[in-house]
């Protein structure tokens, strides 16, 4: 009974996850020549377009020495976050199963 409900939710969530993946992948194919930058260089451009005299008055205390290090840190951030989310739901599901079996 409960299993059926779980399966239904799993199916629904998988479809939803698929949509998210499609939303992220589609731009790569739709705009083959785009840079997919996201970085500060373009931001600086836009601002200096409006105010040609503007000089940033503060710079980051520490900048990752390379793109590789930066992506390492970003990956770490995502992994810690995702890791805890996984832990939480494993814990919650396990607890629920125990409560269920004790009730019987």
């Amino acid at each position, binding site marked *: 009974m409960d299993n059926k409900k779980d399966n239904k939710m799993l199916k629904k*969530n998988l479809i939803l996850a698929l949509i998210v993946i499609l939303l992220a992948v589609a731009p790569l194919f739709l705009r083959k020549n785009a840079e997919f930058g996201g970085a500060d260089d373009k*931001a600086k451009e836009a*601002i200096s377009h*409006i105010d040609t005299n503007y000089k940033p008055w503060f710079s980051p205390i520490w900048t990752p020495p390379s793109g590789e290090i930066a992506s390492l840190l970003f990956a770490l951030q*995502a992994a810690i*976050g995702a890791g805890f*989310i996984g832990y*939480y739901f494993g814990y919650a599901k396990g607890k629920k199963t125990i409560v269920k079996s004790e009730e019987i």
Partner: protein
Amino acid sequence: MKKKYQIALGIFLALLFMPKTTFAMHIMEGFLPPLWCISWGAASLPFIIVGMFSIKKKIEINLRIKMLMAMAGAFTFALSALKIPSVTGSCSHPTGIGLGAILFGPTVMCVIGVIVLIFQALLLAHGGLTTLGANTFSMSVVGGLVAYFTYKILKKMKVSQSVAIFTAAALGDIMTYVTTSFQLALAFPDKTGGFIASLMKFMGIFAVTQIPLAISEGILTVIVFNLLTAYSKEELIDLKVLSEEA
């Protein structure tokens, strides 16, 4: 039903032909004049303080709420690390604030948002310490308030749970970047067109890129919420996000 698809297709095509290569993220270090940095910081501070008290109060309900709050924090932490390509040809990242705001109210996420922003400013040179106040205001304060009240209003209107969650999270996400555009336009009004011209420019840059990402964030929030409804129903009832009989 048919009409819905038509509208969706229309929006999709409109995005597709938007010929812009842009960026969309938090405001960079040093790129907001000092006066604005202080002002936005001052505007965010009360929300952070209220948030700290709010966290204390929610945690006192029971221990499981603490775990749930850590999970909401982890959600924000993970999502804001994911720079996702958008149809405008540049990348941006979701904020993940909506989930926590729906669960715990609008101010709790202000505290969690600040922690994430400080982490990114110190270790990743992403965002910045001087722009921390402005970024906190756009991401946590505005994002949180919009998500929370959108959810409340939609629930009052008896909209289905998933649709309410999706709309709240997506709207909170997009409003974050609309706020960022406002902040930049206020600090950098266009010489000839003034504030409005600048606003349009920054909106084109920030908000449009964010649209597909906001949709993604909405969907991801629904996924997590489905899981919560299945495995952590008691907590949701404790927090009065779900009513007893639901």
